[in-house]
Every structure is written in C-alpha cells, then in structure tokens.
C-alpha cells in the first residue's frame, strides 16, 4: 500500500518498536479507542508481521480505516509504519 501521506495530519504517535505480535495491534487498539472519530494514529513497529496484521485488522474492525503503510530504516532496523484513522 503506497500513497502520498505527506499532507496527513497525525493526531497521535505510538511507538511499539521491539514489541512482537500481537502487542503492536493490541496497543494500537487501546490507543485508538481513546481518540476522536476522524483522528489519525501513526504506529511505528519493528515487527514485519504487523504489515499484514494491520491490513487484516482494518478489514475486521468496523471503527478503523488503514490510510497507508510505509517502511523506513533507523539504526539499521526496518521500521514498519502504519497510519490508522478512527472512523466511528
């Protein structure tokens, strides 16, 4: 999933580096239920499996939308970044 995310306003950022499945998703879910409808959560993970998991989660959940995902590198580690919007 690649798209231009530069104009996106991120409401909150969640750093789950080092956490393994299922924690990135568990934490993201805890976070997003505290946010307002329309807000965007940015999740920074080092777990490669989180890419597919966020896609599946967004499909399964009725209150979130996956706006985009990207990859970058920091300290020699690949970061998997997910942008999720609360829609309900």
């Amino acid at each position, binding site marked *: 999933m690649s798209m231009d995310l530069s104009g996106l306003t991120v409401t909150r950022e969640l750093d789950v580096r080092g956490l*393994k499945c*299922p924690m990135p998703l*568990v934490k993201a879910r805890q976070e997003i239920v505290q946010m307002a409808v329309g807000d965007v959560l940015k999740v920074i993970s080092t777990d490669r499996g989180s890419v597919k998991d966020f896609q*599946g989660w967004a499909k*399964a959940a009725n209150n979130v939308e996956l706006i985009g995902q990207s990859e970058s590198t920091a300290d020699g580690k690949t970061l998997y970044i997910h942008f999720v919007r609360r829609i309900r």
Partner: protein
Amino acid sequence: MSPIASPAMTSVAPNLTKATEIDTETLYNLLQQPNDFLLLDVRNEDEFQLWRIEGPHTPATLHIPYFFFLEDEAEAVARVAAQAPAGRPVVVVCAKGGASDYVAERLREHGIPAANLMGGMVEWGDFYAVRPAVERPAYQVYQVDRVARGCVSWVFISRGEAAIVDPLRYGRRYLDFLADRQAQLKLILDTHAHADHISTGAELAQATGAPYYLHPYDAIHPFDMVPAQMAYHMLADGQRFTLGELTIEVIHTPGHTLGQVNFLVTAPDGEAFCCTGDNLFIESFGRPDLGGQGERWAPIVYDTIFGIMKTRVPQHAWILPGHYASPAEANAAGLYMKRLRDLWRENRGLHFTDKQSFVDYVLSHLPYMPPQYVEIKRVNIGLSHPDVDTADELELGKNICALEA
C-alpha cells in the same frame, strides 16, 4: 529451535485439557493418531490459505484471525465454543506463537481448555522428525523428515561412518544426532541444487571438514548462469564412495535439474537404497520447470525415469525420495520408502509408455512456481546469504516440487 525428535511410534497423547502450551514435537505426536482436539489457527487469511498444519490425522481446524479476538472477544470465543463443546481441548496456532498465546489465554478465561503451540508455524516449519528406516548391525538408515514442508533427507551410518543426503536447513541437528550414535560425518551429498528449501551442505562441510558434493551442472544458476561461489566437490556419473560396509554409486539423473543425481546405496546384506531427490517420489515425480526450461527438460525427465531408472537401479532397491506431497504417501511406519518394482505399479505418474504423451502430461500439470524458488537456488550455490528472518520467509509453506496431482 526444536531438537530432532525421537521416533514416535508408540506415543501417548499428552493430556491436552491441562496443558497451556505444547511444543512442536507434542503436536507431531498428536497428529500421528486419531485425535479429537480442535486446531484454532489465528493467522491472517492469506497465510492460512498458503499452508496449514497437516498430518496423518489432521484435526478439525477452525480459522479465526487473532484480531477478531481483540475486536469482539465474546463473539470470537463463542465461535470457538460452538466447535469445542464439552471440554474439547483447543490447540491455538499463529505465525510465531505470540498471538496464539494471547488467544489461548482468552479462551481459558472463558473456561475452554486451550494450549498455545510454542513458536507457531515458524517452529512447526522447522520441526524434524527422525525415524529409523533400517537398523542392522552392519548399517543403519534414518529418515529425517521436515514434516511441515514435506522435505525428506536421509542419513546412512555404517561402522561409525556417516553420510547425509540432502541435509536440510539446520545442520547442527544432524551433527547432534550423529554424535549420539558415535558416528563420524564422512560425506555430505546433495542430489541437486534445491529450489524449495535451503541446503546446509556447504555449511556442514565448513563446520566438520567432511567433503560436500554436488554435480557441477547444478553449480550454475539456471536463470542467470552465474556460477556457484562456495566450496564443493564435483559429482560425476558412475563415481563410487565407500561408507563403512556400504557402497554409494552416483547415477546422473537429469530432468528436475540438469545436474541432479541419485545415490544408489548397496548394503552387505543385498539390500539397496536409491536416494532419488526430486527425481522419483512415492507419488508423482519432480517437475522439470524450476530452472525455467520446462519444455526442454520434460523430455529429459522421461529419459531419466524410463531409461536410467529402469536399467541402472535394481528393481528391489528402496526408493528414498526428497519430498512428499501428502503424509498418506508414508507406509505404516511413517516412512517414505518403497521398492522400485512396486513404484512402477503404484505411482500413477509412471503409467506412461511413450515420450510424447508423458511430455504432454507433464507440461499440462505444472503447478504454480513460487517466485522465491529462484532466490533459494541462489542461496544454495552461495550467491546470496540471507539472515534468519529472510531465510524463514523464503522457506515458508510446503514444497511444490512435484507435478500437480
């Protein structure tokens, strides 16, 4: 990393109703006999579609991705409970064992006995089951079966000397196994450069000093013609090795790859064993297109099977293949071996009398070729050195080396 398992001929099913976690060996043992547990797979849809846990007795399987348990725990648990009434135990599996642990705990909170498969599919994919095929004073033959992938390797021991044919990814396990039997590794043999799994041949040679052998035709990548960058010894048709009281003859059997060989092992009691790699399987035979040349190599497969295998391998020889597609191919002892004379009759892929109909059949039954097979071959001839995670991903899923059923 799971250890090499002991043969599980008379295993007793563990008490699943009390377990909160089980290891891959326990799961393997559960699958060897009729069972009544429910397998709950909590991976993503595409991962579940790609491969799942199977065995001689595959349990009833339910698929609910773990995030359904995050979103609506009560509903997801109710779906499991509907399939697991009256205390039927549940084994939960995910990719690496984390999400399944979480789900198993939720199920137990709701009174459903649930155990997590530790290490998940990654660990299951790395589980090797060892079974003795023949154990005589003068020599022993062992089947080392990577069950989740349908990959089989073979270990021969005679008078303290050992040979490994088609060693799978974790070489250390073979060395531990040989150490237990006080055997010294003398020969490391690959039937061909594998496309579906990572060989540990060159690595074992480096670790032990035992020579690693491969046919030179397979030491060139078939897609870009880049030659191997690793230390190996060249196999040649007709070459012979001695291993204790066993003799090993190299038979060039091209088709699946151009450099594929079979190892015909002859024992002092008159028994013979032919390690066929991806030439003959118990069901079907090796596809000719993994080098990108299916149309050219399919006729070569015919010449190998109906020429070389008919004339140079004794009919009483046990065929020891490199793969199986289904556990149903094993005999009652869980061994993937059959005498060649029986194979002609029982392997439905061999019922051909002329080359053209064989080639037509082959070319119309080529399964999907996983794109990572090109890269795995690069790894196996030393052109690429993936880290553990990448290697795990390359090897994901069951082998697809045979023709379509």
